[in-house]
């Protein structure tokens, strides 16, 4: 399959899955219903709001869009980080952004009377401060930047995890503790248009910028010495890519909670399929990420009449896939 063909194939796959995701759920909505609404809309005057249109336009549509945007954003951020740090173990939360977000959200859930918007804002703010702290530590140390940055990320992650545990420890076990646990587990069931409005600009602009600069990632992944000799200032681009990816991850995590494994597994799947060249691999990663999370969320909300946290499914599916990839690539290098 040519690179072009692969992208078209994945694009069609995503579109088909998106279409199905709008028609699967607790309430029966047939494509004929949607056609009827479009007919009414064409004749002027939108469809009468009833429970079906509300489910379709205000529950499923924003939820599926959130799933695609989140999956895409997390997967691409993962691919960028793996290229940037030249390390296959890196996932987008390596610099502490997820841990920071989780702590911020837990803080919002524990604060008395805090509204939904505040929870989200605190999650976003704490996520970015965590990355800022990691970068600050790395800057202060100022030797072997890539390695120190990862270590600084570990420091910040464990710090915020400890703070999160402290919050859990003091939380009311009957109300706040389960809310924190479920929020951290990650789920798309709260998704509404406000989430789409929040995520879409950041993720789409981030994807656009990363797409335009994707060849720089190829150079950066050769290492700082090579990159400098090829006329690229590795530090500036590293800071730039970290900023963009962290923004994307922070905005998705602050809306949906921690959804694991996508940022780690999807770039590996893409790399196995199309090779390590970021110019080809990044669009494939984006599409695969969207498909993966949309599919997982579809399963999470339709397997039972209650709601399964989607992160359970992504880890359950992602883990074995990762193990399989390790087995298949056993004789090759990672890139």
């Amino acid at each position, binding site marked *: 399959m040519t690179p072009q063909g692969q992208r078209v194939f994945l694009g069609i796959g995503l579109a088909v899955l998106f279409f199905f995701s709008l028609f699967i*759920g*607790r*309430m029966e909505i047939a494509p004929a219903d949607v056609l009827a609404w479009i007919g009414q809309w064409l004749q002027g005057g939108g469809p009468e*709001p*009833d*429970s079906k249109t*509300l*489910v379709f336009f*205000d*529950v*499923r549509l924003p939820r599926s869009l959130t799933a695609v945007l989140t999956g895409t954003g997390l997967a691409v951020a993962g691919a960028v980080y793996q290229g940037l740090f030249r390390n296959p173990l890196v996932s987008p939360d390596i610099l502490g952004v997820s841990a920071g977000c989780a702590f911020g959200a837990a803080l919002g859930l524990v604060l008395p*009377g*805090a*509204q*939904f*918007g505040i929870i989200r804002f605190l999650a976003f703010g704490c996520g970015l401060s965590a990355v800022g702290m990691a970068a600050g530590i790395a800057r202060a140390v100022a030797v072997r930047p890539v390695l120190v940055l990862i270590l600084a990320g570990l420091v910040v992650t464990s710090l915020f995890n400890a703070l999160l545990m402290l919050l859990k*420890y*003091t*939380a*009311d*076990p*009957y*109300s*706040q*503790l*389960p*809310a924190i646990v*479920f929020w951290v587990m990650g*789920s798309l*069931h*709260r998704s*509404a248009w406000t989430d789409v409005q929040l995520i879409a600009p950041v993720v789409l602009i981030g994807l656009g910028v990363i797409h335009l600069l994707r060849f720089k990632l190829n150079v950066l992944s050769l290492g700082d010495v090579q990159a400098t000799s090829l006329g690229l200032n590795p530090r500036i681009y590293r800071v730039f890519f970290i900023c963009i990816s962290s923004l994307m991850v922070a905005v998705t995590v602050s809306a949906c909670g921690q959804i694991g494994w996508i940022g780690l597994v999807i770039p590996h799947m893409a790399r196995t399929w199309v090779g390590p060249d970021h110019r080809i691999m990044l669009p494939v990663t984006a599409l695969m990420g969207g498909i993966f999370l949309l599919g997982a969320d579809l399963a999470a*909300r339709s397997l039972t*009449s*209650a*709601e399964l*946290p989607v992160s359970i499914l992504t880890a359950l599916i992602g883990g074995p896939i990762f193990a399989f990839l390790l087995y298949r690539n056993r004789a090759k290098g990672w890139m």
Partner: protein
Amino acid sequence: MKSVSCFCLCCFVLLAAVRLQAGIVITDDADREVEIPDQVNRLVTAFKPATLLVLSLGGADALVGVDSSSRHDPLNLAVAPELKEVVGVGSKSQDISLETVISLKPDLVILYSQKTGIQLADRLQDSGCPAVVIAPETFDSIEKNLMMLGKALDREEQAVRVIQAMHNVQETAHSRVQDLENEERKTAYYAGPSGFLSTAPSGMLQDVMIDRAGGRNAASGLHGYFKQVSPEQLMDWAPDSIILSRMIRPQAKTLLKRKQFSLLPAVKNNNIHVFPSTLAPWDFPSPLSALGVLWLGTRLYPERFADISLMQEVNVFHRTLFGQSFTEMNGYLDDELPGEHPVGHTHLPDQDRGDLSP
């Protein structure tokens, strides 16, 4: 002949006294047989529902250690202000401090019946502190635990009074809704303490409460413990009423404004009610859950409950359990979501508002 029977009686009384001196044996909720002293003067409770059970039995004087959060609980402090000064021994989620409990030299420790609680109870037992575990999760087990603790604290009469009060209040509700046909029963969605989209499936106390109040739990098709549901599922159930746990009011207020819920019958008719007591949550397992049943009835079928004053029933109930009325304890009833409402909201009748003014 007379003297012989007299002698027998004396022997019997003497034997009984000796037997009592040696303590009594009670079987707890983990089927552990525990021998406790005849007189329990130093009591430690390790989780909130246990503390509340002891208070409702009038056993506050014997408490020398309580779970830490009970020392700040408004209801507990209204019943027994001295609880503020009692030693905190930790809590179910933060772990109990074994050392603190042992240093209090308790005659009896009341623990929860999860595995960690049972393990702790066995360890305490080995250290010479009698410990029982209880699981007050349903109406039946609450009554059973009341009887068990009544026996242990030698307050069986009060235990019977509390159980009778629970029955009376529920009977008041039941008698008014028992003739409802199945199709007349209103569907109610209960939003639990951990979020607006977290609900109580069939078999949980809240499901039983809705059922006894003449309603139908929207989530009765689900099983297990608190379950998360999707907005779509809630819209599919289309409940007539939405019942909110008290602590999720801010979140529920934001979510209920969303357009997707605007067509729910409960939202259209503004049948959204918050568990009303400002002192203690009636939707959590405790003897007070009986009041939750009555309140739910008055909200679901106001016309059938027009003849009773909820406030009066609540006051009588609290007086039976705690020796003071609800109003005297500075409690009041408030079952509205804070803030403005688009359509006219069903208010509690004025006499039920629980004004502090006489």
